[in-house]
């Protein structure tokens, strides 16, 4: 791999990792809310969470630009209070990827929390655990395979994110140009076919590795949580 290719790869991984780190706590909170609580507006929240899955990515990117751009309502606050600028920076790419991967993450986590027998949580209460104690000692460890699945789905989604990213933070080499954006740029330039193909191979390899790793991790986690047999069943 050339130096430029390595840089692109490193940036893509950085953006994807940060997007997962950024969205994981909120996704877990919302997944728990949707799985375990009844409240007015629950369907609306569910629908909003799923929006990035059905909207054109360009629309999400444009919303983010309006909201988080330097003169956007949120963007201005971020800059004034924390000195953080996300527009046209790699951090903005991470935000765009986080939003796009959010529904996948919430969905996987919600399913795994819903699969936990609430009677186990009740049993924990009778043993002295409060609400937070139950979450940390029963819900969280039992949902671990689903949390991992959600994180890895969102990670893989981030590696492939294109539309929202290019709309929000543009295509700046070395700052916001992740793998898909670089491939797109190369295909638009005359004589870039060979270089584009090299990046495509890297992209496929990376995605494949991520998926294999995720399967292995989920199997391990399930084994840890449920015992060996369940882990094998989950891996099959």
């Amino acid at each position, binding site marked *: 791999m050339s130096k430029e290719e390595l840089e692109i790869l490193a940036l893509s991984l950085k953006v994807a990792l940060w997007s997962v780190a950024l969205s994981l706590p909120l996704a877990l909170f919302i997944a728990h809310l949707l799985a375990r609580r009844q409240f007015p507006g629950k369907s609306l929240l569910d629908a909003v969470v799923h929006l990035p899955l059905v909207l054109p990515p360009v629309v999400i990117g444009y919303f983010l630009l309006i909201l988080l751009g330097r003169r956007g309502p949120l963007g201005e606050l971020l800059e004034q209070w924390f000195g953080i600028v996300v527009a046209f920076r790699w951090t903005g790419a991470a935000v765009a990827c986080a939003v796009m991967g959010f529904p996948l993450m919430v969905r996987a986590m919600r399913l795994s929390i819903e699969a936990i*027998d609430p*009677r*186990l949580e*009740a*049993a*924990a*209460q*009778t*043993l*002295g*655990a*409060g609400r937070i*104690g139950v979450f940390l*000692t*029963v819900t969280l*460890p*039992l949902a671990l395979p689903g949390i991992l699945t959600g994180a890895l789905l969102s990670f893989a989604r981030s590696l492939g994110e294109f539309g929202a990213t290019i709309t929000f933070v543009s295509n700046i080499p070395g700052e916001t140009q992740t793998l898909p954006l670089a491939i797109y740029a190369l295909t638009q330039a005359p004589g870039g076919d060979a270089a584009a193909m090299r990046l495509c191979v890297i992209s496929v390899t990376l995605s494949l590795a991520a998926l294999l790793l995720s399967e292995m991790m989920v199997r391990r986690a399930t084994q*840890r*949580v*449920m*015992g060996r*047999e*369940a882990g094998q069943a989950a891996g099959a």
Partner: protein
Amino acid sequence: MMLRVALQHTQGGFHLDAAFNMDGGVTAIFGRSGSGKTTLVNAIAGLLRLQHGRISFNDEVLFDADCGIYVPPQARRFGYVFQEGRLFPHLTVKHNLLFSNIFLSDKATAAEFDRIVGLLGLESLLERRPGALSGGEKQRVAIGRALLARPRLLLLDEPLAALDTQRKSEILRYLELLRDEFAVPMLYVSHAVEEVVRLAGNVVLLSEGKVEACGPTADVMSDAALRPLTGRYEGGAVIDAQVVAHDLQYGLAELKFAGGSLYVADLDALPGESVRVRIRARDVALALDRPTGTTFRNMLPCRVADIADGAGSMAEVTLDAGGSTIVARITRHSRDELRLEPGMPVYALIKAIALDRHAVGYA
């Protein structure tokens, strides 16, 4: 200790309206499935918040619907052994047992841990996961886990219902052991007469959400008026008695009660101990004169108190044996042949074999 419960709740077509008090020892909540037992015990544990009523433990109010008081389960310090064990699948047996230590300030000590593990025979299971345990082992771990939280009261909701007969009697023995070794009061929910008689000194009889009777086990279980509720399948009577002597050669124990002596097979109780004996109605035969040349070890002079027609060809004869009640289930044919009438003196005949270890509970 004193637990006072008075609760009302309506859900769908079901109406619960139950009030009872319990002090130390083992109290059973006895009733058929659907009678509201589990709802009641879940409300006591704090897992269910019912519409109306009040629950207090000693001087502490745990729930009062009118005053808006509701102490959450984690603050009640009541242990709970569930029907299905509910062990945490992601933790080893050891960590299941020590689960409450994470949250309690007055943790169980290492000595207490060793004692409970030893009593319940869990030493060899400590490193295993619940998925690798049998039903009986799971329930033993669940009991240990609840005890290690140092509960003020132990709630047990049909802890034997999911087990086969052999495991049932195994766990029952452990429960008897714990009742005698620890001073933890127990509230034991069950629909099985045998378990109630063996474990509980007092019974709360629940039927369709209402407390039909409440009192010492022998009184409630022998009450003729309650027989449709207590004895539909296993009709009989329960008497309080005392162990007087053992015949080691033949493995028979002699018990004394108000109505005379009873011989019981294979009982491991010491002379002087108080016991409850359940005598099933179908194990009792009647004779007008004291028979000779028979294998019946128990021949008790009684007086016929009441005769009622049972289902089908049966008749149920209630007998007064020196103040204790015994019930005999005979055919209507026999009743007419012997011309049984209330007030008649008769002999109740019971095989010693019919009264074995499973029919006797320690008071």
